[in-house]
């Protein structure tokens, strides 16, 4: 079933590229392809039995000699993320309805991207996972390069180099690990790590390998020192691609941590928890404060997504810093908070980028100073924009708040001071988002913008699922949290130890 989900988009992509007449109808094919796989994914997630562990497992021998097999399965961790991809992919295809030139290459690349994402989230064997991990990179690179804004070349290249370097480090680390432990399988590795085989085998290399593996994910999330690729890449990418990047790609980094680093190197995280915590904190503050000074709306959103994703990492590292489980099981709450934040931010950020993109399409420029007083001209746009801003701001009863409250309540119990500082960033987020609204929607409208046309109902419909979802997550998050409840519980106890 999962293989079907993973490979349907690619088939659609091939159909677009290869079938003779497919060039003109690439859009509907892409939509249909992504819809089918997303419906299947949703069906799978709905059918996910909360009690059991790994389900929908498909395991085939791929390269038996070195223990590489095609191992796919859904457990608590990736159920939510599969759902995220499933929800976002049709919306992203719809969002790119306006792409005209070189449409079929665009849509085939996009579909390949979706396949890579499905694959990356469902893979349970490092080798197979790594292939999809890299595969996700390539189409993104080309999409940015070919269809991005005017600074796209540099952005695409730095995006590519950073992530590839990181993944090379990770690959080396994992290969070394494979050499020592003899297995690529995440589940096995987790078991080995649990009964101390990994740390004993690696001996004094443990630190280095831990660092190497973490580096690949570090760049992807991105965390503080290696984050400079993220903002230009998100800003220069075309709107749907930036939706993919913020919505799902950054979550791959966090997912990687939860899937790879946490179960296999729990001691590593515990040992270096304070450094890691500081880094996460710096990234949070970094994102927030940089966003303050930006005028390009997509850059602001990019930095804000840097900040939001850093919350997840902050939660994970906070769990690492915990010593033992107290009565409120803070590690579990923090980890669940991270999971929910991934999902919520994915939805929210994607919506925000879409709306920001619409501003660029309609208004022609990305600089918020060029606009003003749009509130009167485009009330519906203002409403949707405001709604999404407040959701990412962390307004209660919206997605942002639910995740953040979990993270903070969990993290505060573990590391109060850091969390307090992290809250500072909340304030900064509020400031820069509200300045955007103030700059764009209030005050006198520029004379040139008198003729700006309101965004059509259809465009609002495109992201209506996202809006509805933000409210659902905000009001009643348990439906989403149940999916990962059991898994996170075991994982957090493993990490908090």
């Amino acid at each position, binding site marked *: 079933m999962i293989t079907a989900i993973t490979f349907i988009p690619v088939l659609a992509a091939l159909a677009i590229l290869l079938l003779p007449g497919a060039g003109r109808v690439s859009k509907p094919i892409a939509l249909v392809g992504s819809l089918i796989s997303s419906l299947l994914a949703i069906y799978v997630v709905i059918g996910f039995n909360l009690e059991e562990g790994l389900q929908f497992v498909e395991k085939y021998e791929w390269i038996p000699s070195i223990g590489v097999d095609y191992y796919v399965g859904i457990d608590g961790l990736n159920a939510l993320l599969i759902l995220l991809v499933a929800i976002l992919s049709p919306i992203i295809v719809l969002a790119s309805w306006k792409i005209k030139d070189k449409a079929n290459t665009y849509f085939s690349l996009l579909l390949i991207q979706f396949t890579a994402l499905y694959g990356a989230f469902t893979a349970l064997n490092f080798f197979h996972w790594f292939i999809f991990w890299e595969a996700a990179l390539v189409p993104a690179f080309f999409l940015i390069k070919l269809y991005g804004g005017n600074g796209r070349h540099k952005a695409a290249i*730095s995006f590519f180099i950073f992530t590839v370097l990181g993944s090379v480090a990770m690959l080396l680390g994992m290969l070394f690990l494979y050499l020592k432990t003899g297995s690529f399988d995440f589940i096995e590795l987790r078991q080995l790590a649990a009964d101390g085989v990994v740390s004993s085998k690696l001996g004094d290399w443990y630190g280095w390998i831990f660092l190497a593996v973490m580096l690949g994910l570090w760049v992807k999330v991105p965390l503080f020192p290696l984050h400079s690729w993220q903002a230009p890449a998100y800003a220069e990418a075309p709107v749907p691609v930036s939706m993919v990047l913020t919505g799902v790609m950054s979550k791959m980094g966090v997912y990687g941590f939860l899937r790879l680093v946490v179960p296999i190197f729990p001691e590593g995280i515990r040992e270096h928890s304070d450094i890691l915590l500081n880094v996460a904190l710096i990234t949070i503050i970094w994102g927030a404060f940089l966003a303050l000074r930006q005028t390009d709306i997509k850059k602001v959103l990019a930095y804000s997504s840097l900040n939001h994703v850093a919350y997840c990492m902050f939660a994970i590292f906070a769990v690492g810093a915990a010593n033992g489980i107290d009565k*409120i099981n803070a590690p*579990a709450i923090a980890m669940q908070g991270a999971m929910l934040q991934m999902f919520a931010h994915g939805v929210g950020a994607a919506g925000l980028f879409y709306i920001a993109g619409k501003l660029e399409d309609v208004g022609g420029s990305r600089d918020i100073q060029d606009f003003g007083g749009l509130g009167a001209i485009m009330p519906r746009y203002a409403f949707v924009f405001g709604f999404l801003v407040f959701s990412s701001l962390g307004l209660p009863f919206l997605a942002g708040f639910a995740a953040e409250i979990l993270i903070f309540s969990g993290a505060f119990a573990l590391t109060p001071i850091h969390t307090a500082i992290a809250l500072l960033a909340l304030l900064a987020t509020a400031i820069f988002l*509200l300045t955007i609204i103030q700059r764009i929607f209030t005050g006198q409208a520029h004379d040139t913008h008198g003729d700006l046309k309101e965004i059509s109902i259809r465009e609002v419909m495109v992201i209506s699922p996202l809006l509805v979802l933000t409210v659902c997550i905000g009001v009643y998050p348990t439906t989403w949290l149940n999916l990962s409840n059991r898994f996170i519980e075991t994982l957090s106890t493993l990490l908090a130890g």
Partner: protein
Amino acid sequence: MNLFDFSDSVGWLMWIPICPLIAGVVLALLKPSGKVSAMVAIAALTVSLGFSLKAFAGTWGHEAHTLTHNFTWIQIAGVNLEFGVVLNSLTGSMLAMVSFIGLLIFIYSASYMSQDERMGRFFCYLSIFMVGMLGLVVANSVLMLFMFWEIVGLASYLLIGFWFHKPSAAAAAKKAFITTRIGDLGFLIGLLWAFKATGTFLFFDGGVGILESSTIAALASNTNVLWGLNGAGVIAVFLFIGAVGKSGQLPLHVWLPDAMEGPTPVSALIHAATMVAAGVFLVARAFPLFLADTAALEIVIWIGGLTALFAALIAIAQYDIKRILAYSTVSQLGLMMVGLGAGGLAIQDGGVSIGMFHLLTHAFFKALLFLGAGSIIHGCGDEQDIRLMGGVFSKMKISSLAYLAGTIALCAFPFTSGYFSKDQILLSAWEANKTVFWISAFASLLTAFYMTRQCCYVFLGKYRGEGHVHESPPLMTVPLVILAVFALLLGYVSEHFYHVLDYLSGVHVHQHNSTVVIISWIIALGGISLGLLVYARAKMGIDDVDPVKRLMTTPYGWLENRLYADELYQLTAFKLWGALAKAISAIEGLIYIMVVVATAIVSMIGQFFSGTIDKKLIDQVSFDGTCKRIYESSQINAFIQNGFLQGYLRIVTAGAVVIGILFLLLAR
């Protein structure tokens, strides 16, 4: 959570915030015309009022009794974060007050905003505000309270910035939201701390809740957790920070005067009755925590007192009618805080009622004042500067009279509602802390003074603005009269209210101290007479210098500029904030440069490799080199293959010779 069973449990309390929510959603999505939206909002609010009165009636009899109904919001790994509703006398009274005054304001604004084409949107925001406020009041879980608290913040942002085409309004909205947001951070930390310490968010959870005596005792046990406060005290202080933010106490008061940018009903609703009250309500709600730590109460008193004095001083030098009222609200709130703090110190459990009663009375007469001001402004052709008004009394009889009633209540003229509530505060302040008493007393004096100043400016003399002043329509004046009646007569029912508000101990301790009574009389009458003395015959034109200003020009100047509070923030907080941002972006630039340098190095290395090694070594030397050698060598023998027949033969013979010689030598 059974919303629909109205039997004993208090689940139905949730209906109170939900009704306006439904109205809000309906208004937002369907966007009906102005009149219809007003009807929808008012209807929803009347339903909530009904429930509120039912709740108020429920608590009338048995004060100390608290009914709760909790349900889990998120359940993680055995730990569940719960929401809940609570019904005790505090909730009941607040519900009644908020919904009643809200209704009056809704009706008032129905007419006030009738010309505005975005009236539907206005009532939607108002409904959202009521959702937040009512939700806040009924919340039993501190998390839920916080969430509604933020909803109130959002609503205030939307309402202040309603006329967003005015840049000042938008800026004010943003400023309001952010300042309250700072306060909220404190609140959030408090909340998290509570959760960390107690493991639950609920106030009353069958003995385990935060406000239950057992947990408070446990909290209070570890002393000197932070800044000399014990466990409970820390949480209390952090919660108080939230209150300071919301109620505009001293450090975070800057947003309140600017909030006047919003339409008058908004100012009335927010800055008189409800929103500002939320802060005080929070302190009241979490009073047991405060009681557990006297230091916390000390903080409360001091901040309250200073705010009162500070705001009162600024109010003297203001010319905008709404701004004066705003500052008076700030100072009154300070007094309420003093009431609570001093009450707590003086009569422990009873302290709540003192602060809360003043809140109730203040809500009424301040709402009256604001609405009155609204109708006066409306009458004077939307003119807000008092120097351009005057002689309104003759034109707008009803509004003026109602306004005067509100003024005397505010000045705590004997036997008005203000007198009863303020008197108690002064009494407890006398008990608790002499200096705070004198500060609050002086503040009250100033209050009386600037209110009379304002009345003289507005009502006496002749009309200094253009156009003609006309009385507001009945829809506006009727609520004024009702409020006036309440403002004046509520005092007599005070005794009963005190009883109700003492939900903690259930009994009301009467404090009586003759000197304090005399002082309060002097304050009230002295202030008014002083005001009349100075301003009765003063020239109050736009260009005339304010009499007080003539006396002490420079300090008056300071006051005019609101004691440079904004500028102070500008210099300190914002500059720091901007510096931090600048520093970070500088570092970011540095990192970016480092990255660029790194990639340059890498590409240089790459270049080196591709350049030297690849090009020179491999291309030239080895690969191309060999090719060239081969080519050259081929050239050589090509030289031979030049079609010159003899050449070939010669070579053949030469070959033969060589072979022959070899054969000779070898075959020997």
